[in-house]
């Protein structure tokens, strides 16, 4: 974990990022267009060599944040600033949100994506070698076949793939092996930033642990930063240096992992943590009962978006949008009453230190 939080260590700066989709409803005469605010005014920073976890329930906009940062979706407004360390880069800070055409294509190898489902994200008609080499070929980064082969073999070995397997087709592999192929493909261009979108959610527990360990090792070796998107908080807790929580298109809290999990300030984070069933029969499982369902982002509630379900909601919450602010060092949250809440729970790490 990097303790140096100086500006030179910043890899990505996301400022006021918003992604809105027009949703058109046909009527008998004419049509209605509404704006779906999938991501609304999100700002955060990712450091070099760091893993940022992004959690939230379905429809909260986690995937959209990841895709907008990679320019797989064009952001509606806001900035994504990328401080590249690549020696061949023309300038050190690239405004990813303004790139287009050739400039964007040439920049693409600097960032990458690992998907959720290792079954549907590998082309069954390509060999493993061709799958892993594709980012190099498609971006025009490398042209020499021998050079590409060397790079593919290097990354496959790092991802603990058997080099004999490079000639095979993906159908011959199990879920865990396929996910390693996907990771090798994402890292072959030596990107500085990789989005892992629910990359371990589809795997069985015993395999999942292995992939999480692999991602950590690769980060230590290559210094890559991860945005680790997941709905499973316990996996995020293990892999992330810092964690952001999203609710209906907005960040509600962003803090170093220990602070977020052991002393959260936002009532939603607290409720989310209480809802996780622990594999401990003596743990007191008393999830905070949230009223109702997750709101539709098309008709997001006014004021604080969580006020319709928040057990602590007051009048002010339904009218004023809470300010995104730093309530403690490196601990950001958006709740009017964050300073008054103390949701701390015992930290198992502390008790591990021998007395």
């Amino acid at each position, binding site marked *: 974990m990097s303790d140096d939080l100086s500006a030179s260590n910043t890899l990505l700066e996301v400022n006021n990022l918003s992604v809105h989709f027009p949703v058109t409803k046909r009527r008998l005469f004419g049509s209605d267009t509404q704006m779906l605010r999938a991501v609304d005014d999100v700002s955060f920073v990712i450091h070099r060599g760091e893993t940022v976890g992004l959690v939230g*329930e379905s429809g909260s906009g986690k995937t959209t944040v990841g895709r907008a940062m990679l320019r797989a979706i064009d952001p509606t407004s806001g900035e994504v600033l990328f401080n590249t360390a690549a020696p061949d880069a023309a300038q050190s800070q690239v405004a990813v949100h303004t790139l287009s055409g050739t400039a964007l294509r040439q920049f693409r190898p600097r960032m990458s994506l690992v998907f959720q489902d290792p079954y549907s994200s590998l082309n069954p008609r390509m060999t493993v070698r061709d799958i892993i080499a594709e980012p190099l070929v498609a971006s025009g980064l490398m042209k020499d076949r021998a050079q590409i082969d060397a790079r593919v073999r290097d990354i496959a070995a790092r991802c603990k793939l058997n080099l004999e397997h490079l000639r095979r087709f993906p159908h011959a592999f199990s879920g865990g092996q396929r996910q390693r192929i996907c990771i090798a493909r994402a890292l072959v261009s030596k990107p500085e930033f990789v989005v892992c979108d629910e990359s371990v959610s589809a795997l*069985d*527990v015993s395999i999942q*642990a292995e992939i999480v360990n692999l991602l950590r090792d690769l980060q230590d070796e290559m210094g890559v930063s991860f945005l680790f998107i997941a709905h499973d908080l316990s996996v995020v807790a293990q892999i992330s240096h810092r964690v952001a929580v999203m609710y209906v298109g907005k960040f509600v809290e962003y803090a170093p992992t220990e602070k977020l999990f052991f002393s959260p300030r936002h009532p939603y984070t607290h409720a989310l943590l209480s809802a996780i*069933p622990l*594999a401990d029969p003596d743990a007191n499982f008393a999830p905070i*009962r949230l009223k109702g369902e997750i709101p539709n982002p098309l008709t997001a509630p006014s004021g604080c978006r969580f006020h319709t379900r928040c057990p602590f909601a007051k009048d002010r919450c339904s009218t004023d949008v809470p300010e995104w602010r730093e309530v403690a060092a490196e601990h950001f949250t958006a709740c009017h009453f964050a300073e008054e809440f103390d949701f701390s729970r015992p930290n*198992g*790490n502390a008790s591990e230190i021998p007395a």
Partner: protein
Amino acid sequence: MSRLLSVENLTISFRTDEGTITPVQDVTFAVDKGRTLGLVGESGSGKSVSTKALMRLLPRTASLGADTKMHYTAKDGQVMRIETLSDRSREIRALRGGEMGMIFQEPMASFSPVYTIGNQIIEAIRLHRPMSKREARAFAIDMLDKVGISNAGARIDQYAHELSGGMRQRAMIAVALSAGPALLIADEPTTALDVTIQAQVLDLMRDLQRELGMGMIFITHDLGVIAQVADDVAVMYLGSIVERGPARDVIRAPKHPYTQGLLAALPSLDTLSKRLTPIPGEIPSPNARPSGCPFHTRCAQKIAGLCDRKIPREVVPEPGRAVRCWLYDENGRAVA
């Protein structure tokens, strides 16, 4: 406590183009009235197939083993021998739904998109209870209310796509419960739901079970869910139950190396940033089941020449518990 269901030596084979495969082998378990049995295992371990066999819902290519016994005590006290019933007999049709209810993982796939929720609940009620349409409708609204669907009177006329995921799963539970089953089989009922919604549904299922005194089989791959809902647990690996016993004891002090590995691989919320401990290797495919103990290919404690040759028998290490592993002798004591 009375026995509701006892399954002995359940073996299921499928005829396939590549020959016969046996995804479930010699599975033994029991469910008591008012208690929950958690069936836990990773993909391909045979959890779902085993419970489908209980309702005789297997495809025609499947066959049950010769010494398979599935005895169920019906609500009127009669013992039904499920393995002898024909797939289409009147008895098995009364059993499906009326005696045993089932909830599946993906509620969107279990509801018909062209009928309203109400239509489908009323159908289930009228199949198992002598009620007029009007009475059945009133009963259906009551059921929806009971599973916590607000404004049930209006929701009953909606279609499945108009409900949210959590609401749909509640409606599914209402369908299963409306026929008044004595045993509820829940196949990964919360896996597709978000955690806050999952907590709501688990809460609801616990309350309903307490109220109705049903027995329950809860299939899941999530040991956290098991720890919170199950009284007893059976851990499956590649078609065999490797360990079973009271949930608390099994999770606190697992005996089988697979259960130990599974618990160690689980990321914890209490101690962060510790390196996870995966179980080495991959889960073998069911058509290439290893000889001997199915887990020996990944087991760190395997005994060469024994585990890879002979299938371990089930032994009793403590009263109420059972484990299938060569690390324990006939009396269930650990072999040094």
